[in-house]
């Protein structure tokens, strides 16, 4: 299973790198889709069907909206050559990646083996959620009962995002627009 996840993650990295360097913006958007659908396969391999359903649907809708936007605006990416300051920033970024990778590799050895975390709270969730909430789907029981505040926050974020979009996208007001 870890090999399959590694191969999928490799494809996702290739897709993300291509999306940065593509000359055509439409192919860049499609390459972004590789990242999302690869994440769906990762979720399915890690036995999380709830997340996989949400991810595949949201990815499809987002891809449709992005394609519609790209088809209506320009498709050519405007490239700029890196100047002196840009080169400096790029070198600093690569150095930061190397340092972070070194510390990550040194800390990975002290972690638990993959998929065998022994968290006390997660253990009691898995054992007792079905009896306490009465819902056969464990994820819904956790999301709407134990972690209700989180779900309320997510729904509120969505409402706020819609309000922001409506505020920005309106050129004319509703009264004068008729």
């Amino acid at each position, binding site marked *: 299973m870890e090999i399959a996840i590694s191969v999928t993650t490799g494809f996702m990295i290739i897709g993300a790198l291509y999306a940065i360097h593509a000359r055509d913006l439409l192919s860049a958007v499609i390459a972004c889709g590789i990242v999302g659908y690869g994440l769906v396969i990762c979720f399915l391999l890690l036995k999380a069907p*709830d997340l996989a359903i949400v991810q595949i649907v949201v990815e499809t809708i987002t891809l449709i909206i992005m394609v519609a936007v790209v088809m209506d605006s320009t498709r050519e990416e405007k490239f700029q050559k890196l100047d002196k300051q840009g080169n400096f920033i790029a070198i600093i970024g690569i150095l930061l990646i190397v340092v972070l990778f070194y510390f990550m590799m040194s800390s990975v050895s002290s972690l638990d083996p993959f998929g065998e975390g022994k968290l006390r709270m997660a253990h009691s969730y898995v054992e007792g959620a079905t009896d306490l909430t*009465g*819902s056969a*789907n464990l994820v819904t*029981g956790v999301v*709407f009962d134990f972690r209700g505040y989180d779900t309320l926050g*997510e729904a509120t974020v969505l409402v706020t995002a819609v309000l922001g979009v409506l505020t920005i996208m309106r050129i004319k007001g509703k009264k004068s627009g008729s």
Partner: protein
Amino acid sequence: MKGMTSIVKQTTKLIAGMIFMYGIYVIVHGHLTPGGGFAGGVIMAGSFILLILAYGGDFLNLLKEESGTTMYENLSMIVVLFLAVSGLLVGAHVFFLNWLPKGTLGHLVSAGILPLYNIFVGIEVAASIVTIFLALIIFKEEVTK
């Protein structure tokens, strides 16, 4: 906004209703099978987006539809808040209390108040995503005018 060809229109006519029904199924069975309010709401929004893309639509019709989706979104958010506050009034007086009877495990009507949360969060998610899509289309029509 123009519609698409007649092949796309006929296929959409056959498929859109089924996609909508599948979204309702995912929402209502959210406490039994994988899925739930967020996934089902986005599937329902997908059927509306398919209809709008295939058939096009008048500018004024889109404006009317957008005011409707905005109203549904805000109303269902208020209902979710009232459901959460209702736990403060009954039983142990706790926010987000699951105070309805639990029922038997695995039945459609069970798990107390969780299906109600699922249904209203699903309506809210569907309405908000359709609203964002409509806002983008209306913005484009206003710019080209």
